């Protein structure tokens, strides 16, 4: 059995050796899974280590989202080479390689053609700086097999490395303050400038097709050999594979006119330059990764054990004990953040752990879109987002200004010229928090793309799906995105639940107020919150027959009093609230108490919205 050292340093050698021995044992996925899990921490990650520090043809891992799937390609699985000096034929394995050895005998009878597919993968969009930082630091504990030692100088290295990125990398600074507030603030203010400057710089370069503007990190062409059908678009994966940055790939091989031959081979000339650029970008910018094994990620929270192994269940059961106390602390924290509004904090907490856990025909179950109305203006929402960002591993704030709605591309669209799926901001990984800031919206005219964008957002909220534009038809991709809408009045977008914010305190200086709250939290505390939010979502949940009966009775009673006020929709919502409420307390079954609590807070919320209505109620 090859040692982990061999695997990491010369995986191709291992593969060759096995090819020679004709064993197929290592191909079995469970074997590779346990095998890689064992030494996964030793494998350098493309997310953390700059590309030029990684040895070509070494084993690397990559945490990513499948952004596009290219057409399958045929390659020489087995081929024969002829040694020019000895004329001896040698059989070779073409798997996990981009180029062949010298002297391929194209006419050999032993050639076996095999099929593989290329996925275009990008780092998980909207990954929070803290998640990157933690996974980076934990990866840095092991020195990868290169001379690279992560240290302060890293930043300058990265800058001259990624010449395509003008935005200086701030989020990964090793000395980032633990609270990261000032840090993310800088980022926030810099983001627009980077957006405006990049196009001019970038136009000559490659568009790496990240779903979100201002993203950075390596994109990767992943060659997939096995289990093609098990992967889906927008899956988040941790891929273990062999890195290939062969410069041959970079040179676009145009057949030169050979004096003895007139080349009329059409296949190469048929690809448009755009297509070539999209499918064969220089390997120094978009490395190739030959997948040995991929693990689907349930979440990308580096604080949680990622594999559903025994450690995880041990971890979960140990954390369950603390659950209630962490919840109370988090609630207090959120209450402060929401200006002393406990009810809104409760709902925000429920929203943050919501998850589409199943679908019944077209109906997604478990989604819980929250509309926080009555938000104070003047950058309050921006601050709120930063706090949410600190808590969840993936998030994106979409400021719904007229300009962005009219100009931004939300829905991915197939570009038939370049033959790729041009990404849009709604191509997000599962459980990403999408923060829609409607307070930025002003009066004005939406043009047709603006209307399409709003419709797309509406569809996302109601059905948890995005209709990708394939020009001749649309294709529906289900998604699982937590949408939080902040608005002044009731949002123009649909939502599952609207909570008008009722500030209990009116701090004279909002900025200062929020910063102090934020600073008051210790990193360990925040980390606990992060674990709590990710964990609560993964818990199983069930409901007993007895409680089912009680719920039914309750509903009938409520309807009896006032059939107009309680509808099926209300029941839908209350069932979701009850579920989330139980989960937030670490309870995996619904109790009668849980149901009563859910009913109670929903009642409070409703009375508040009605109050709101009558306050601004000029309508008849």
């Amino acid at each position, binding site marked *: 059995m090859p040692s982990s050292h061999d695997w990491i340093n010369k995986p191709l050698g291992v593969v060759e050796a096995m090819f020679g021995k004709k064993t197929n044992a290592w191909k079995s996925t469970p074997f590779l899974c346990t095998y890689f899990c064992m030494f996964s921490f030793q494998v350098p990650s493309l997310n953390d280590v700059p590309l030029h520090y990684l040895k070509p043809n070494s084993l690397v891992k990559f945490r990513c989202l499948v952004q596009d799937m290219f057409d399958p390609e045929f390659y020489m699985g087995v081929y024969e080479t002829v040694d020019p000096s000895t004329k001896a034929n040698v059989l070779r394995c073409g798997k996990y390689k981009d180029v062949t050895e010298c002297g391929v005998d194209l006419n050999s009878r032993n050639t076996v053609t095999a099929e593989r597919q290329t996925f275009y993968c990008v780092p998980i969009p909207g990954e929070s700086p803290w998640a990157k930082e933690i996974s980076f630091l934990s990866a840095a504990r092991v020195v990868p097999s290169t001379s690279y030692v992560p240290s302060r100088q890293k930043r300058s290295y990265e800058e001259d490395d990624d010449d395509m990125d003008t935005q200086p990398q701030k989020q990964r600074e090793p000395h980032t303050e633990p609270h990261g507030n000032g840090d993310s603030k800088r980022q926030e203010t810099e983001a627009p400038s980077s957006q405006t400057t990049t196009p001019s710089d970038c136009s000559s370069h490659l568009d790496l097709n990240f779903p979100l503007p201002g993203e950075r990190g390596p994109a990767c062409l992943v060659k997939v050999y096995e289990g093609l059908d098990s992967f889906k678009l927008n899956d988040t994966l941790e891929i273990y594979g062999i890195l290939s940055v062969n410069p041959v790939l970079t040179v676009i091989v145009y057949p030169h006119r050979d004096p003895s031959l007139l*080349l009329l081979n059409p296949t190469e000339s048929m690809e448009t330059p755009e297509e070539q650029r999209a499918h064969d970008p220089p390997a120094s910018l978009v490395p190739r990764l030959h997948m040995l094994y991929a693990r689907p990620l349930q979440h990308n929270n580096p604080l949680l054990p990622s594999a559903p192994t025994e450690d995880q269940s041990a971890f979960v059961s140990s954390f369950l004990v603390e659950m209630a106390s962490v919840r109370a602390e988090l609630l207090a924290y959120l209450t402060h953040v929401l200006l002393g509004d406990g009810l809104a904090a409760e709902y925000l907490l429920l929203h943050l752990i919501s998850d589409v856990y199943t679908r019944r025909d077209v109906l997604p179950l478990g989604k819980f879109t929250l509309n926080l109305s009555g938000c104070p203006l003047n950058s309050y929402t921006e601050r709120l987002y930063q706090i949410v960002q600190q808590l969840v591993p993936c998030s994106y704030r979409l400021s719904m200004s007229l300009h962005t709605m009219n100009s931004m591309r939300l829905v991915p669209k197939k570009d038939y010229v370049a033959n790729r799926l041009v990404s849009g901001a709604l191509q997000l990984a599962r459980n990403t928090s999408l923060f829609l800031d409607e307070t930025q919206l002003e009066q004005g005219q939406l043009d047709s793309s603006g209307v399409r964008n709003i419709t797309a957002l509406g569809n996302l909220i109601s059905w948890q799906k995005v209709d990708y534009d394939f020009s001749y038809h649309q294709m529906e991709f289900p998604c699982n995105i937590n949408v939080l809408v902040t608005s002044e009045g009731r949002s123009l977008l649909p939502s599952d639940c609207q909570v008008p914010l009722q500030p209990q305190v009116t701090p004279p200086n909002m900025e200062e107020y929020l910063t102090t709250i934020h600073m008051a939290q210790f990193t360990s505390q925040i980390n606990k919150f992060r674990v709590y939010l990710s964990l609560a979502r993964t818990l199983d949940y069930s409901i007993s027959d007895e409680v089912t009966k009680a719920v*039914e009775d309750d*509903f009938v009673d409520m309807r009896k009093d006032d059939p107009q006020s309680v509808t099926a929709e209300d029941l839908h919502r209350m069932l979701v609230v009850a579920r989330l409420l139980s989960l937030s307390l670490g309870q995996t079954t619904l109790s009668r108490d849980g149901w009563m609590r859910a009913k109670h807070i929903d009642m409070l919320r409703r009375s508040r919205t009605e109050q709101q209505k009558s306050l601004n109620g000029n309508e008849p």
Partner: protein
Amino acid sequence: MDRSKISTPTLRCFVETGPDHLCINVFSSVLPSEVDMSSPLMYGTPSSRVEGTPRSGVGGTPARQRPDLGSIRKAPQVDLHSEPPSADGAVASEQALGQKLVIWGTDVNVGTCKEKFQRFLQRFIDPTSNEDENAGLDLNEPLYMQKLEEISVVGEPVLNVNCSHVQSFDADLYRQLISYPQEVIPTFDMAVNELFFERFPDSILEHQIQVRPYNALKTRNMRSLNPEDIDQMITISGMVIRTSQLIPEMQEAFFQCQVCAFSTRVEVDRGRIAEPAVCRNCNTTHSLALIHNRSAFSDKQMIKVQESPDDMPAGQTPHTTIVYAHNDLVDKVQPGDRINITGIYRAVPMRENPRQSNVKSVYKTHIDVIHFRKTDEKRLHGLDEDSDQKLFTEERVQILKELASKPDVYDRLSSALAPSIYEHEDIKKGILLQLFGGTRKDFSQTGRGNFRAEVNILLCGDPGTSKSQLLQYVFNLVPRGQYTSGKGSSAVGLTAYVMKDPETKQLVLQTGALVLSDNGICCIDEFDKMSDSTRSVLHEVMEQQTLSIAKAGIICQLNARTSVLAAANPVESQWNPKKTTIENIQLPHTLLSRFDLIFLMLDPQDEAYDRRLAHHLVALYYQSEEQIEEEFLDMAVLKDYIAYARTYINPRLNEEASQALIEAYVDMRKIGSGRGMVSAYPRQLESLIRLAEAHAKVRFSDKVETIDVEEAKRLQREALKQSATDPRTGFVDISILTTGMSATARKRKEEVAQALKKMIQSKGKTPAMKYQQLFDDLRGQSEAAITKDMFEEALRALADEDYLTVTGKTVRLL
């Protein structure tokens, strides 16, 4: 034979490139003088190897190259038993040799293959053929001989051959055709030309007849293409997404010596032309120059084809394939067309740069087209049936039939429909019947045109009664469904619009939702929010099932045989039970009468209902995994069931059912006539027939029987009870839907008008009155409450009688 290796091309390379001696050995030992390697006709037995069309005497019909087949000329024949080549072959008689010779790398013997194909052409009869391109042919005569006759008349030298015919006639020949198309098709060409010119020795064609096989059963789906299909003949379906400009491809290069002006021709061989290094005439080296004008070129076009959306697994992106069309197939398809392509699947190694030692280990793949078949085009004539036929395996059909034989199949299916939506049984049943549709009938002979078979349904009701969800479900269920919201769609988006292609500057007709859902269901949400002009488009679609377009110089009529499933909200956001349907949703009655069924989705507000609803919802949220699994299965079965019934079942009315329908209609008319109003129109009868037919389809029955009529009646009654009940009298009044006003309302209107007239007359000679004053007076006088609307209506009625005019705030008598 292990086809996963690219055996054929490698073998051929072997032959062509270096070690020619091997095969030449075979020949030189056997037929040293007769085998001319450069002869364009390398296939026949030695006796048939004559330049030009064999035995035709028509030297005027030139052979035409077939770039779609690649370079085929160099494939030599080998003796099957001559490996290793032995001297025995030399003594064999020529006749025996002919039997044994096969084309290198294959098991195809040219002579046998040709004979078999000629036999096929002369004998194949398919009495059950229902393909529309065979229209006008005598089905009991050999099909392809008739086609040859057609060729001699029309002069288009192309013979399309359905591979399934070949298969049913000679399975071995079919196998060879699929496995070695590059060798077998030229043999077919030869066979057909011999036959043709024997029969019609005097006909002159542009070039020799080319055989174009189609409908190879090898592959149906782009996703299932794999290395084993390389160099085989395949048929795939897909949608054209891009076509390139025409590319001239050199077929034959013309070289002239710069020194002595000696000229020579070199043919293209696998995309390469070997430039002669030495002039054969004057022996000067490197003196030959290519003369473009005198070289021969053929047309070529690159076409990109994308997998059709129906074939794709969820959550993946569609695959694309590059296709090359040659000669007259160029420009036959446009982006957006759905086509079936028959062709040869090719894989070419990435061209290696001679200066580079290692190469990319990837092949480029494409398909050389032999035959296109547009699936859209066919739909103009009739339903696209043959592409669906293969969807069902024997077992599947058995399962479906078993299901159909159950007595409660109707209830089962309707409850499988959108299980997450609670109750509304009748609505689900209505939608179920809509999914099946009626039987298509053609009355064009009698001048009536097509008789609509599609059932249209309107759902109206309070917001939040899961109307949208039902629409979404239906949209996801049917293969050709479209979902649009009335708010966002314009007339243009629904019908068709003309777009200028940025590349070619060509005007292209882009079809909208209604045309796209031809043979499917068009779901329109927020029907009430639709603008009037948009809605007016629907008038034609919903009755005539066609769409007329006159735009930017394009005038055409498209088929839009779509069922419409629409959902509308009441104008006052809450359904007002005191008003009629028309008043509640404010839609023109002309449009409403085109709906077969109009359902109200209201909140019934009673305790038992609430309890069931609560139970249903809670179960929805906490059902176990297995139950969910089970249901998914149901949806797949339901899909197949509907597809099967729509394709194969065409029920007709039997005698009893016709009688029952007549009775039902007469009864409906009678009810109304008793109260002095019309309660049924022929349209109701038509929709009754459609519903009955659909119900028979649900049972997989070829006869519409009384039970079907009973159910259709019941459903229609239920729908009418909900939507056409006059809120004032409580009676069902069809005129609410057909004329927009109930009979009682009309009567009342008249009464008010009369009362007003009387009042004005009683006032004596006052030429002008204040509007408000008059209204107050009338209100004071009348016992019943008079609304402003009623008052205005009365004024309008009187104005129509030329009794008075209303100008601004004053009313003048005339």
